[in-house]
Each structure stands twice: as structure tokens, then as C-alpha cells.
């Protein structure tokens, strides 16, 4: 803080501070607090209420018919009173329906059905698996890029990595869809060698498998794994690798004892980022599986908001996902033995 003041002077520091505060308040705190609030209340179940309204309307219609057919003035007055009372009841009921009383409590958090709870757990585990697979795939790539024998080779490798990312994420996912679809590239290849028969609808249903989802998620989020690892590896003195080799260490031991310990902060950043992206991923499972491969939890959240129109439950779902994900992130930081300070370095 004091450094900022010294580096930029008073007025500029104030501007920077205000911008940062604005950012934290408007874009982080306020939406989260609103979400938390939504998740903590619910309104009376509307089914009973609308039945009661229906019943009151029916009664009122009947009373009106009766009133029109009634000749006896005494009875007519009675019916008039009944009608007025019914109209008041209807108005009250309708008022209750349009703005029912809020009940605060944890009911939204305890209402998750077993199926949804299962999907929740599966999403978290799958996201962890995606992060793990991405790490295994990306570490060698990051290593190769960081220690390319010539700058030219490094540039070529990085360009090859970056080109697919110049494409919009949705387009990338659709490209994978074309590859994995029933009549997609892979199945066509299989058909060409006789392993599948598109006419007879005998094909490999890639899109219904978790494998396809994994492949696409890893490819979509790979860069978030490659870059932090590559950045930390670039700060590793290549002489250390040579020294380890000179002392007789195998390639495996060099990685286990010298390279990976050095890259740990980068690995932590990569794993955490990919895990968070995968856990909250919506477009990839939505486009890819189209409901055939089992839901991702984010799809459930979406449906609570925009199909079931239950923002309260949706908020509770979203907030639960956030809290569990953060808990896992902190657990991972402990497991990696890295602190926030190291990660943000």
C-alpha cells in the first residue's frame, strides 16, 4: 500500500484505490451478497394458494348466478354480502400470491434432491479429474516450451498452442462436437475402416461418454494449465537440471526432485484455475452432451433460474458450488504447500 503511494503519488493512488474498491464492491461483493440473500429465503408454496383462489372464484361465480336468479330481496342482500366478502378474499389471496411473505431459513440448502446431490458430487469429482488430466497432459508441453533448445522452436510451440485459442470458446466446443458426433469425424473414420456403419446407426456414442466431455474440457482449459507452469519453469536455471543429470539422476528423479518442486506454485495455479473453470463450466457440457451424457451441476443451476424460475433454490445451488469449490481450492493449496502469497507472485 505504502509502496503504491510512493510510486504513484497521492492523487493517482486515490484513483487506483477507488478503482480497486469499486471492482471488489460492485463486481464481487454485491452480486455474491445478493445471491446469498436470495438463497436464504423462500415464499409460501403457491400451489395451495392458487387452488384457494380458484375455489373462491368458482364460489363467487356460483353466488353471482344464484344472485341473478334470486327473487327474494332478503336472500338477495345476503348473497350480495357473501359476494363482497368473497371478492375481498380473492383480492387478499391474489395479493398474497403476487407477493407472498418471505420466510428466511436454510430450507433452500436442505431441499436438494438425492439426484441433484449426486450430480453435485459427480461434478466436483469430475472437475478434479479434469484438472488432474490437464496437469498430466500440460506439464510435458509446458516443459518442452520452457526448455525449447532454440527460441524459434519455443515460438513455434507457443503459436501452435495459442492458435486454437484465437477461436471463440463456443466455436471450439462445436468443433469438438463435429469430431465426436454420431456422424462426426471420428465415426466417419471408423466407418471407413469398417468399425462403424452410419447407415445402420451402428456407431460409437462418444458424446454420451464422460471421456468425450473430459477430452473437450481439457482441451478448452489446457492453456490455463500450460501458461502458469511454463512461467515458473522459465525461472528454473537449466544448469540445475544439468547438475542433477551430471550427478547421475534419472529423468524421473530430475523431475520429481528438481523441476516439479520448482514449478509447484505454477502447478497449483494451473490446477486451481482449471478446477474452478471445469466445476463451473456450462457451455461445454450443455453443447456437448445435450442431455445424453448426464448433467453438470451448472446446468442444474441454470435450470433452477430460468426454467423452474426458482431463483432462491438456484442461488442456493450456485452458492453451495462456490463454497465447496473454494474449500477444495484451499485444501489444494495446503496440499501443495503453497501460500496465496506464492501463488500471486
Amino acid at each position, binding site marked *: 500500500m505504502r509502496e503504491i503511494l510512493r510510486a504513484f503519488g497521492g492523487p493517482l493512488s486515490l484513483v487506483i484505490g477507488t478503482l480497486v474498491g469499486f471492482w471488489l464492491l460492485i463486481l464481487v461483493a454485491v452480486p455474491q451478497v445478493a445471491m446469498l440473500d436470495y438463497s436464504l429465503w423462500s415464499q409460501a408454496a403457491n400451489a395451495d394458494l392458487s387452488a384457494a383462489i380458484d375455489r373462491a372464484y368458482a364460489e363467487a361465480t356460483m353466488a353471482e348466478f344464484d344472485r341473478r336468479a334470486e327473487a327474494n330481496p332478503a336472500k338477495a342482500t345476503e348473497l350480495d354480502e357473501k359476494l363482497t366478502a368473497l371478492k375481498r378474499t380473492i383480492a387478499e389471496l391474489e395479493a398474497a400470491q403476487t407477493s407472498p411473505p418471505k420466510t428466511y431459513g436454510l430450507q433452500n440448502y436442505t431441499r436438494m434432491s438425492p439426484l441433484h446431490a449426486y450430480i453435485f458430487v459427480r461434478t466436483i469429482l469430475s472437475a478434479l479429474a479434469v484438472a488432474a488430466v490437464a496437469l498430466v497432459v500440460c506439464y510435458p508441453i509446458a516443459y518442452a516450451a520452457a526448455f525449447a533448445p532454440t527460441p524459434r522452436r519455443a515460438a513455434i510451440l507457443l503459436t501452435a498452442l495459442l492458435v486454437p485459442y484465437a477461436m471463440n470458446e463456443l466455436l471450439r466446443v462445436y468443433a469438438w462436437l463435429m469430431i465426436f458426433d454420431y456422424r462426426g469425424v471420428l465415426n466417419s473414420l471408423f466407418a471407413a475402416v469398417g468399425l462403424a456403419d452410419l447407415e445402420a446407426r451402428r456407431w460409437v456414442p462418444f458424446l454420451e461418454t464422460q471421456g468425450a466431455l473430459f477430452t473437450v474440457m481439457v482441451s478448452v482449459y489446457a492453456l490455463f494449465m500450460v501458461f502458469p507452469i511454463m512461467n515458473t519453469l522459465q525461472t528454473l536455471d537449466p*544448469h540445475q537440471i*544439468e*547438475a542433477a*543429470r*551430471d*550427478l*547421475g*539422476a534419472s529423468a524421473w528423479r530430475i523431475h520429481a526432485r528438481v523441476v516439479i518442486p*520448482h514449478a509447484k506454485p505454477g502447478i497449483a495455479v494451473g490446477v486451481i484455475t482449471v478446477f474452478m473453470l471445469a466445476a463451473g463450466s456450462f457451455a461445454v457440457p450443455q453443447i456437448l452432451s445435450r442431455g445424453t451424457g448426464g448433467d453438470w451441476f451448472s446446468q442444474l443451476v441454470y435450470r433452477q433460474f430460468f426454467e423452474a424460475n426458482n431463483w432462491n433454490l438456484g442461488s442456493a445451488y450456485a452458492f453451495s458450488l462456490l463454497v465447496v469449490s473454494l474449500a477444495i481450492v484451499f485444501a489444494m493449496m495446503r496440499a501443495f504447500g503453497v501460500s496465496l502469497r506464492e501463488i500471486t507472485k
Partner: protein
Amino acid sequence: MRGTDVRLDHVDVTFGDFQAISDVSLEVEPGEFFSILGPSGCGKTTLLRLISGFQEPTRGRVLIGGADMAGRGPNRRPTALIFQNLALFPLMSVRENVAFGLEARGIPKRERLARADALLALVALEGQGAKKPGELSGGQRQRVAIARALAVEPAVLLLDEPLSALDLKLRQHMRAELKAIQRKTGVTFIYITHDQGEALTMSDRIAVMNRGRVEQVGRPEELYAEPATPFVATFVGEQNVLIGTVAASAPGEAAVDTPLGRLVGRTANGAPAVGSRAFVMIRPERLRLSDGAALAGVVSRRDLEGPFFVLHVESGDTRLVAHVPNSGAIPEPGARVALAVDPADMLILPEGETARA
């Protein structure tokens, strides 16, 4: 531990179209303290990487203990390399650093840590094993690197300017220590330096390199007294260089016409052709003040070096440097002086590249 011999046999190394090592042949004796001396960029590190296995020769052979090392990686050679920047593992403790080579050989933890402690004692670092390298001083880190390299019991220890990062005092202390460790262990040391003082004080023999070639190999006193080329003559020790034309030539002796007159001196190898250009090399400590009409000039500067004065004497465009003992009357700047030198102390070499052109 016992050292073995190292032989380079007509070795070339080229990077693209740049030739870093040209036709180098060397024979290092078992248990020898052998230095490779040369200016920065002359190919010393490349030569060391050639022996340690990080660099394959473009041509020629590398033999260690008589065995051809072609195709053998650094982890399978009986050498250990101490890198110019030491390359200690910063995340490991000092002990783990030293034990790393033993760990790689699958030696059980208790044993390898015990051996690491013994080596730390050898380099006078008892009790520092639990620290991280970053917590040690430059000289201590230096010793950790030595202990780490010695832990794998190499037959040949390769050192790439290991003292260049230390300050002068520590450097002088470490020279003696390195030499003592070498004697104690009997390991062949191949020591790289661009510091001629370091090479002269520590080495059994020295190879002087320039532009990827070995100019001369010899004992320190040989290189100093009998340099074979103008480069060696000027790179090793200080030298006054006078250029002239050979006026007369006989075996072992020649006369050269220089700006300071005709000088007669001894020749190193063969008789230079009369009329050819040649250098007359005179060490500053061989010049003495005299009354005779030898080399006359005016003192332009006078610096006290402690036991002797450095006199800068100018005569026309020629400038001579003389070391005169700090006793008696020393001429002041501006004084006319005459300097004398024995013919045996004037070395005549054919004109060629010098170290400080």
C-alpha cells in the same frame, strides 16, 4: 577416490557455422591439477562440457581412463562438474544437496546423509547441513558445490571458473583450500579460469586457449618463462611488447630493429627470417635502472605496489613498464632514466596475435 587420465584427441566442436573448438588435443595425467586458461569466450566452458558429456564433439574423441566416451551421457561418465554459477538446488537443504548424487544411486537415506555430513566436514561446513543454500555465504556455497560433486566419488572433477563470483580475499583463501582438497582426494582436477594468477598458483600444468585452440600446454613456470606464442607471452603475466624487423638471425638468437634501437635477444623456436616482423618481449621485473645508455626514456608515472614500484617510461610512442625494487632512490615522474635488460631476458617471437592488442 582416485583420479584417472583424460585425453582429447583432435576434437572439433561447431555450433552452426561457428567453430567453438578447433582441433584440440590434450592429455591430462591421473591425479593432476590441470587448468585451462583463456580469455572469456575462447571455448573453455565448451571444452569442459565436452569432457562432462553435455556436448558431443563434432569431430575427434574424448577418452577418460582410456575408455572412449562417445555416446555416453553425463550421468554415465566418471566425472562431476561444478558449474560456473554452482547450480545448487535451492529448495533442498545443504545436506540433501550433497547427498543428491548418492540418492540418485539408490543409497539408503541414513547412509547417504551420513556420508554427506562427512563430506561437509571435509569442506569445513560441519553443522550447516540443515540450512538452505540461500542462507549461506558465497564461499560456503562454493564449498557445498565441491562437496556435492565429490559425493559421487568422481575420477575427474571439472570446475568452471568456480571462484569468479567470490571477492579477492575469499578467492585467495579458496585457492589454497581447493588445492588441499585435490591433494587429499587424489581426484584429477580440470580447472577452468580466465584469471592467469589463479592458474599459475594452483596448477600442475596449464593449457592456454585462444579462439577455440590450445596455444600451449606446460607447467606454470614454463609458460611464464618460455611462452611459445605472442598470445601466451602476453596473456600469462605482464609483458612489454616491442615490435620491429628482424635484422640478423642465428639459431637461438636474433637482432631486431625496434623504435628503441637494435635489440638482441634469444629466440624461442627456430630462427626468424631476416626482414620479417617480430616482437621483442620483456618482463617488467627484468628491466632495471642503469647508468648505461640502454633503453632511455622519461618517467611518466610511478605507482607504489608495496614491495616494488611500477614505473611507466615513455620514449616517443613507445611505453615501457618496469618493476623496480622499493629501495634506494626512485626516479620521480619527469625524470630521464635508462633501463637495462639482459639479452637472455628478451624473448623474440614472430609477430602474431597478442592478448591485449
